[in-house]
C-alpha cells in the first residue's frame, strides 16, 4: 500500500524534504527559464534571414569571432586556476589560531570590495607607463623603458586576479573551516608529513568546495567584460567572447546574433563545468567531520 511506496520513494530520496527545492525552482522557472528560452529561440531567428542555424554558422565560420573562444579561455582558465591554487595554501596556512589572524583574513578579503572600475582605473594609473610601478622600476634602473602591463593580456589578467583571488580565498577558507582538524592529527600520528597530510587528507575533503570555487571564479573570468575593455586591448589580444556578444547586441543591435554568441559562451562554459563536475563527482562528498 501507500506506505510501502513511501518507503520506496524515501529510499530513493523522494520525501517531503524535497519541497524545500520548490521556492528556488519556481523562482528560477518563472524568472529565468522563460526569458532564457526566449533568448535561445531568438538565437535561431537570424536578423538577416537565413536558416535556423545561420547565426551559429556565422559565428563559427568567421575566424574573427570564433577565435574569441580561445582568447577567452586563454585568459579565464589560467586566471581562475591561479586564483584557486593561490587561495588554497594561503587559506590552509590561516587555519588554526594565531595572533592577528582575523586582521590578516580581513586584509585578504578586502580587495573583494574594489569593484571592476576601481581596479581598472587603478591598474591603468599604477601599472601604466607613467604609473608608480614603472616609476619605481625606472628609478631603480631595473628597466630603461616603461614596461607595458596594461592595455594588453596582462592588464586583464591582473584585474581578474585582483577581483577573483579574494573571492576564491573567502570561499576556500570557509570550506576549509568545515574539515575536522582531528583528521589531520590522525594522519600525523600515522607518519604523514605536512605536505602529505595536505595532499591526502585536506585536499580530497576540500575537493567539492574547490570545484565549486573554481567553477565560480572561472565563470566570472570567462564572462570578463568591463576589464577586457578597460585594461585590455579589446580590439586585439583581449577580444573576449562577451565582447563579441556585447558588440552584436549593443553596437550592431543584432540581438539574435548576440543571443547566439551568448549561447555559445554558455555552452563552452558548460563543457568546462561538466569536466570539473565529473571530476568532483568521483571524489568523496559528504560529512568531513568538522561540524559534527
Amino acid at each position: 500500500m501507500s506506505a510501502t511506496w513511501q518507503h520506496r520513494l524515501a529510499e530513493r530520496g523522494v520525501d517531503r524534504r524535497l519541497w524545500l527545492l520548490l521556492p528556488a525552482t519556481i523562482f528560477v522557472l518563472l524568472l529565468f527559464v522563460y526569458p532564457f528560452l526566449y533568448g535561445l529561440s531568438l538565437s535561431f531567428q537570424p536578423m538577416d534571414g537565413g536558416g535556423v542555424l545561420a547565426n551559429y554558422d556565422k559565428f563559427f565560420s568567421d575566424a574573427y569571432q570564433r577565435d574569441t573562444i580561445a582568447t577567452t579561455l586563454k585568459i579565464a582558465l589560467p586566471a581562475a586556476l591561479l586564483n584557486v591554487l593561490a587561495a588554497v595554501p594561503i587559506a590552509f596556512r590561516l587555519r588554526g589560531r594565531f595572533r592577528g589572524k582575523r586582521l590578516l583574513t580581513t586584509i585578504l578579503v578586502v580587495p573583494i570590495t574594489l569593484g571592476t572600475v576601481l581596479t581598472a582605473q587603478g591598474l591603468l594609473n599604477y601599472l601604466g607607463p607613467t604609473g608608480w610601478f614603472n616609476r619605481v622600476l625606472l628609478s631603480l634602473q631595473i628597466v630603461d623603458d616603461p614596461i607595458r602591463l596594461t592595455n594588453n593580456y596582462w592588464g586583464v589578467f591582473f584585474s581578474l586576479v585582483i577581483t577573483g583571488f579574494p573571492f576564491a580565498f573567502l570561499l576556500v577558507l570557509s570550506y576549509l573551516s568545515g574539515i575536522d582538524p582531528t583528521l589531520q592529527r590522525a594522519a600525523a600520528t600515522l607518519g604523514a608529513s605536512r605536505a602529505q597530510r595536505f595532499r591526502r587528507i585536506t585536499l580530497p575533503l576540500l575537493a567539492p568546495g574547490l570545484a565549486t570555487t573554481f567553477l565560480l571564479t572561472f565563470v566570472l573570468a570567462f564572462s570578463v567584460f568591463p576589464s577586457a575593455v578597460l585594461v585590455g586591448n579589446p580590439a586585439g589580444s583581449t577580444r573576449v567572447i562577451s565582447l563579441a556578444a556585447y558588440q552584436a547586441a549593443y553596437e550592431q543591435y543584432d540581438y539574435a546574433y548576440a543571443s547566439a554568441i551568448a549561447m555559445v559562451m554558455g555552452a563552452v562554459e558548460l563543457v568546462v563545468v561538466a569536466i570539473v563536475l565529473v571530476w568532483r563527482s568521483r571524489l568523496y562528498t559528504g560529512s568531513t567531520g568538522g561540524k559534527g
Partner: protein
Amino acid sequence: ACGAPTPSKPAADSGGDVPDKPAKAVSLNILDVAGNLQLTQPMIDDFVKQHPDVVSKVTYSKGPAPELAGKIKAQQNANRVDIDLVLTGTDGLAAGQEQGLWLDLLTKYSDRLPGMKDYLPPAQKMQELGGKEGVTVTYYPSGPLLEYMPSKVPSPPKTAQDLLAYAKANKGKVMYARPANSGPGRTFLMGLPYILGDKDPKDPVNGWDKTWAYLKELNQYVDFYPSGTSDTMKALANGSANIIASTTGWDINPRVLGTVPKEAAITPIQGFHWVTDAHYAVVPKGVSTDKQAAILQLLQFMLTPEQQAKAYDKGYFYPGPAIKGVELAQAPQESKDAITEYGRPEYDKLIADNPTEVPLDAKALVAAFDKWDREVGGSKVKKS
C-alpha cells in the same frame, strides 16, 4: 524588423491627439544617455520653474547609450513605458529608430517647435538625420582635430602624411581610441575619407580605400588603441602620447577640468571637413499625450536663444547651441570665464572656413567599426 525581443507594438495611449497643454501638470522622467544634461539640465530646470502648471516635477536618470534600446524595448513590450524623454546622441537615436521605439512627433506637431526653424545650417543637416522622431537640442562641429603638447612636438604635422611620418619617427606616440568607444576616435575615422579624398566618404566598405590603407599603415606605429577618449587624454597629459585625435569639446573641456595641461594645443589636418555631431531629444512610444504636450512645450523652450546660450557650458560641446544667433555673451558668467580662459580664438575661423559633413548613418557606421575592428585594431593580435 527583428529587434529584441519582438518588434514593438505601439503602446495604447500615445496615439491620440496631443493637447496643447496637459490637463494637469505632469511629472517627467528624463533619461540621458549622451551626457547631454550637462548642457541642458539648467534649461529644463528653468522651464519647470517657469511653468509649474505644465511640468510639476522632473526626475533625471542617466545611463550608457548601448543598453538604452533594450530597456525601452522591455518597457514597451510590457506596455509600461516609464521613460518620457530620452536625450541621446546619434547612436542611441539610430538604434531606437531601427527598432521603432520612438514616437513620430514632427510630422504632426513640428509647428509647435518654431525654434527648429532657426537651426544653424549644419545643425539643420543633423536634424535631417534625426528624421521625424528626434529633435536636435545641441550641436557642435566636433572634429577631426589633432591635439598635441607643444613642448614635445614643436612643429606639429600639418597634413595626413606629416602625421604618418611623425608616427613612424615616434613609435607609439600617436594615439587615438577605438572608434566604437570614442567620439574623437570615430570623428577621426569618419573625417579621413575627406582628408584623403576617398571615392565615397559615405561608404566605408567600398569607398574608403585610401582611408583603410592609411589607417593600416598608421597602425604599424601604434602600440594599442585605448578603449576610451579619456585614456588618450591621460596619455597626452602624462607624456606617454604626443599627438592624439580630438574634437573642439574634447580640447577645451578637459583642460578646464585639469585632465589635460592647459598648454596643450590643437592643429587641423589640411583639407579636413568637420564631421558634425548633435544631441537629440526623443520620446518613446507609449508616453501619454498629456506628457507629449508638456514635452513639446519644454523642447520649444529649450530652442530659444536665451536657453541655447547655456549650451556653451565649459566648452563641453563647443560651441554647443544648435540655433543661429546665440552669442557667448548671452551665456552664464561661469561659461564665459571658462571659455575666455581655455577657448581658442582660431575656432571661429576654422568653423567658418571648413565644410561640414554629417556623420555616417548608423548602418554604415557599424560597418566602419566592424571593418576597423577586424582590419586595424584586430590585426594587432597577430603582430604581437
